[in-house]
């Protein structure tokens, strides 16, 4: 094989049929606003933790919806709960409560 110094990106396909949405439903019960997110990214732009740990509420919501719990949890561990994201969210989502709810429902060990 030739070494080009780069590789083709691995497939990013997600088979939603294999994703267990039970926890997300629970999350939706605790914080119904999670469906309001329009992925505008305002929260990520303002997040002070994003600079250090790549935290982004937008990505967390998307990842959880797509069953990519591991990535979401990795990001969440960097959140400082400062509340900037909830101040800027144009949809008025209580992101801090969302984050705390995720921290209660999802697990970090069983990945």
């Amino acid at each position, binding site marked *: 094989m030739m070494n080009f110094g780069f590789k083709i990106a691995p497939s990013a396909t997600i088979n939603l049929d294999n994703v267990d949405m039970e926890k997300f439903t629970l999350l939706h019960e605790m914080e119904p*606003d999670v469906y309001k997110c329009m992925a505008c990214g305002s929260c990520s732009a*303002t997040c*002070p*933790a994003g*600079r*250090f*740990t790549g935290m982004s509420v937008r990505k967390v919501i998307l990842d959880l919806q797509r069953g990519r719990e591991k990535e979401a*949890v990795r990001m*969440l*561990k*960097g*959140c*400082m*709960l*400062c*509340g*900037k994201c*909830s*101040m*800027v969210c144009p949809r*008025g*989502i*209580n992101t*801090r*409560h969302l984050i*705390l709810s*995720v*921290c*209660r*429902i*999802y*697990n*970090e060990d069983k990945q």
Partner: protein
Amino acid sequence: MIGMIFILTWCTVGMIRIIANLPKDDRKRFFLSLVNPKIMLKNIRDIFCDCLFHVKLWKRNRLLGYMHSSIAFGWFMLIVIGHIEVFFYAPHRAKLLYFPIFFRYFMAEDDSTMGGAFFFFLMDFFLLVVLSGIALAIVKRVHSRFFGMRRTTNPSFMDLVGLYSLWSIFPLRLFAEGFTADISGGSFLTESLNHVFHAFLGNHMNMLPTWWAYSLALGIFFCALPFTRYMHIPTEILLIPLRNAGVRIRHPRKGYAEAEVYACPSCGVCIDACPMGVMKTHIKDTTVYLNRQLRRHNETRIEEISDKCLLCGKCTAVCPVGVEGDRLRIAQRSARKYNISPDYSCIDTDILKKEASFRAPASGKVLYFAGCMTALTPQIRKSVESVLTRCGTDYEFMDRDGGICCGRPMLMAGRFDAAEEMIAKNTDIILGSGADTLLLSCPICYRIFRENYNLGKMRIVHHTEYFAELIGSGTIGMLHGSDRYVFHDPCELGRGCGIYDEPRAVLSAAGELVEAEKHHRESICCGGSLGSLTLGFGKRQAMTENALHNLTAASPDSIVTACPLCLSTFHRYADRPVMDIAEVVDRNMIPADSNDIDD
């Protein structure tokens, strides 16, 4: 009698339990304080002022104060004088606890001696005082507005049992003593009642049932007491020495927290105080109901109530017994289990340290930490920087490109370990910079820096204090304009850190200062607080509007605050300009050394 024994054992067991549940060092502190004469004196004074005279309630509303103190002090005096009486007339029985209460039943005395008449008069007088208090209490149930309270507590079933038995004790006592007044002596009240009774009830057969009814009411009251709000009477006596000993809430349910919960008499002062109260749906989430649910161990409601609160601290500020509604809630939150816990080990403090480091000697210099919230209100940051540059202060910006959060929002959510981690990282950066002064713009940061950080000799100031000093020392002069300003005391700066005078001094230098309807310790939270975990944006609007309404009572030209969060919250709904105090200073300042001005 049964009631008496029951309540005494209950109180002793309860007291031992609370003291046993205190952490070791707190317990030691408590016992040491009991032998310290200075604290002991303070204990006695506080017990008298708070439990008997209800001084704090007097300050709030005279009628309310009179109602509470007449019942408490009147009853206390009845007991004391009753004992003295017994001591005089039947010293051999003075040890029996129940004897003074039923003294008039057992004894047949007359007021032939001067002393006798005097005691009888006192007894009747205080009985009248108590009765007037109870009459007021009945009026208050129906018309709480007379007492300066818009709302009063909704009593639970057991509270009602206690309430009615308490209400009936004293009228029954009056009747009972009235019946026996000609046998055992009485004074203006009981004697005259006795004559009335004699007018249509000739004999003494009626005296037995009334004495029975009296003792029954007393017995019911004491038996029901542990399950009602009246448990506050014995608990408050324990709470005061504990507080004076410096004991604080360490555990959500045990020890000091338990003492606070049981010391709450459900007076309901905190209901009107709470900013959430503007919406009817939140009235049951005020501190008095938190205490009730904690007594009932209703976990679902406890969680709901604790999470909704804005942690503005107003209930704590107004509470006459010193229940700390905000700390109590943080403690409840801290008991929660999370499956994902934060981990900030990947945050590289070296970059931040480099950003915060000074050129050449750092001593005497100012490190400015704007904080997360200030990043969303750049006008504050710009004004502070402009003032600092124009008066030639050598400063460095600690979080120009965003830094680590101070940790207070995390602490408010009850996640202490994560907050500690942030505190450690920030401490490292700040101490590494070598500056002497840490300047802050956000009261939320300011509070945690004062309470939870250990920065050695470094001075921690909020920009209001810093500017007040600059103006006071003449480093900067202020152009006195004709604008009317009202100052909004941010919760964390005012009630949290006790800074009230500095911002007012600054504003008086810049223009005319007017006060809001409720100010200083009673200022109303803007509604934007990070303390609430569950309140969404939609539910906060009514609170913000209410706070604005309060601020504009004296129709000021502009509203001035000193907190970035208040600023952006008020901006949303205000009908007139809202500014930070730094903007006012920046706009009106005249540097003493005018060479420094570049425009």
